[in-house]
């Protein structure tokens, strides 16, 4: 078999499953799936998934490393927890999906431009700067993520909603000039750095 997906991997051997178990949050649950598919059917965004959770678990067991990590499927999860509530094997599917997405992101394998991933990145950037989320800046960043022209279009399209929010005092236009910060910004950033360090020490980079 010359599937590049599986280079260095023997199909249906443990390698990738073990990698997932070691590196992905709740990855040790992947082996417990019995392929009933209730998760796949329960997902409100199911239609948008290329691979359903149960299929992803099977792909992991089949050693399809690249195909899984490059997939945008697990990025579709909105944490509704339907699947967890219904899984007859009690797999924490939501967590595993986020874990896989996170792991793919860390490895740089996550799909470029995948909206959920972009949002997550922007949100993170927005948040760590001041220790508080700046909604206005976050919204604008979202509008303009695909370039200036598209940004203007997006902004005009959302005009009504924006004005409504301002009128209802749910959005402060002044936030554009810096906005709120948390009390101890450098302390907060130190905390984040430390968390990152712990996280990195926990998970070894395999690929």
């Amino acid at each position: 078999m010359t599937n590049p997906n599986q280079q260095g991997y023997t199909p249906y051997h443990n390698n990738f499953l073990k990698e997932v178990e070691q590196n992905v949050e709740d990855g040790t649950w992947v082996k417990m799936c019995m392929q009933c598919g209730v998760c796949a059917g329960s997902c409100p965004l199911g239609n948008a998934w290329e691979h359903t959770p149960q299929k992803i678990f099977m792909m992991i067991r089949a050693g399809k490393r690249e195909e899984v990590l490059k997939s945008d499927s697990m990025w579709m999860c909105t944490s509704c927890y339907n699947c967890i509530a219904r899984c007859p094997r009690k797999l924490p599917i939501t967590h595993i999906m986020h874990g896989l997405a996170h792991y793919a992101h860390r490895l740089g394998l996550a799909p470029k431009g995948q909206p959920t991933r972009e949002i997550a990145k922007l949100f993170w950037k927005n948040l760590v700067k001041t220790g508080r989320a700046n909604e206005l800046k976050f919204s604008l960043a979202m509008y303009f993520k695909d370039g200036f022209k598209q940004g203007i279009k997006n902004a005009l399209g959302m005009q009504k909603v924006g004005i409504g929010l301002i009128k209802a005092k749910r959005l402060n236009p002044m936030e554009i000039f810096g906005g709120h910060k948390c009390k101890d910004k450098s302390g907060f950033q130190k905390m984040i750095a430390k968390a990152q360090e712990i996280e990195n020490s926990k998970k070894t980079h395999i690929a």
Partner: protein
Amino acid sequence: MTAIIATNQTILVVGGGISGMTAALEAAECGKQVILVERNSSLGGRTALLYRYFPKMCHPTCGLEINLRRLKANRNLRILTQTEVTSVTGQRGDYTVSLKISPRYVNSNCTACGECAKVVKKEIPNPYEYNLSRTRAAYLPHAMAYPQHYVLDPSIIGTPDADNAKAACKYNAIDLDMQVETIELKVGAVVWATGWKPYEAAKIQPYGYDRFDNVITSLEFERYADPHGPTGGKLLRPSDGKEAKNIAFIQCAGSRDQNHLHHCSRICCMASLKQTQYVREAYGEQGKSTVYYIDIRSIDRLEDFYRKVQQDSTVNFVKSKVAQIKLDEKTGDLILHGVDTEGYHRYATQHDLVVLAVGMEPESNGIKLPADLITDSSGFIEGSADLGQIAAGAASSPLDVNRATQSATAAALRAIQVVYKTSAIEEAR
């Protein structure tokens, strides 16, 4: 009532379903003294409420008839209905059991002539039809009921209905003064054949058993298919009485599920395969059955039956645990949502009726059992450590009828061994 003679050579069998009857008869036909107690007013248990058995599509009442004949012919056997075991003390070879006998308000004079039922006005949900229909409050449990005596529902005692019933009986068979009786017996061994009960379907929230009329259990479906059942054998759906021709069978409804029953109930695959043939029997090529499953567990030669059903053009199989059922308000139909995991095909399929293949739970769950009885993590009875109390049939494990009778026959021998050894020890003294 006549005095019951029991000794440490007597075997007590608890439960008068197919397993209990089998255990009692097999032991009695070996020459042992047996007392069979049944909580309900007739023997037969759950099997008496089934339309057909897999894989032969034969009728459970056929075996019941033979067992009843064996029982009528056997003098080693005493039957107590409406009787529950309230306590078992002592040990192997020397038990004292307390029995609580609830009043039937009808004595053995009853000839089953039916005159009482004609004058009683009150109707109650029929417990022998899973409450799907109503019956007069003076009733014969079913056509094969044994003992063949009527029952008065306790709710009419003290009302004119009861007095009228009494007046209508020419045989002095109605005794409105019957009270709860408690008796104590000595027995040598106890066989627990308390059977099973269906898992409470409403607990499986996404399937909406409590919200949608047209979601029913596999046991209810048996009653619908039975010509003696509430619909006279027509597969009519509850919401509007329309003929249900496009029927979904959902496997593992409660079974193999850490949120519900963690065990596999064994029989449900075969039961649904059997029920697809009820649909065929009713509608021929016009009927349609879809079985949603995880694994089809048609073990040993039951595989032949599975193969036959697979070849049936009216039956489809979808490897999928159905995720959710939604109601189509206009038609009363149900839309099943899920994913066929063989290759990933998403579906939203409309059906007239949904049958949940509900799992088996030990009937003894929720009942106080003697402290020395060992049960497993699902509540199935393993027996007592000293082997003086033995489990038989579906009380011991989720079993089909064939295996339950096998288990009951084995249990009968184990009970005989207990009393044999007791007598051998006594002789040695």
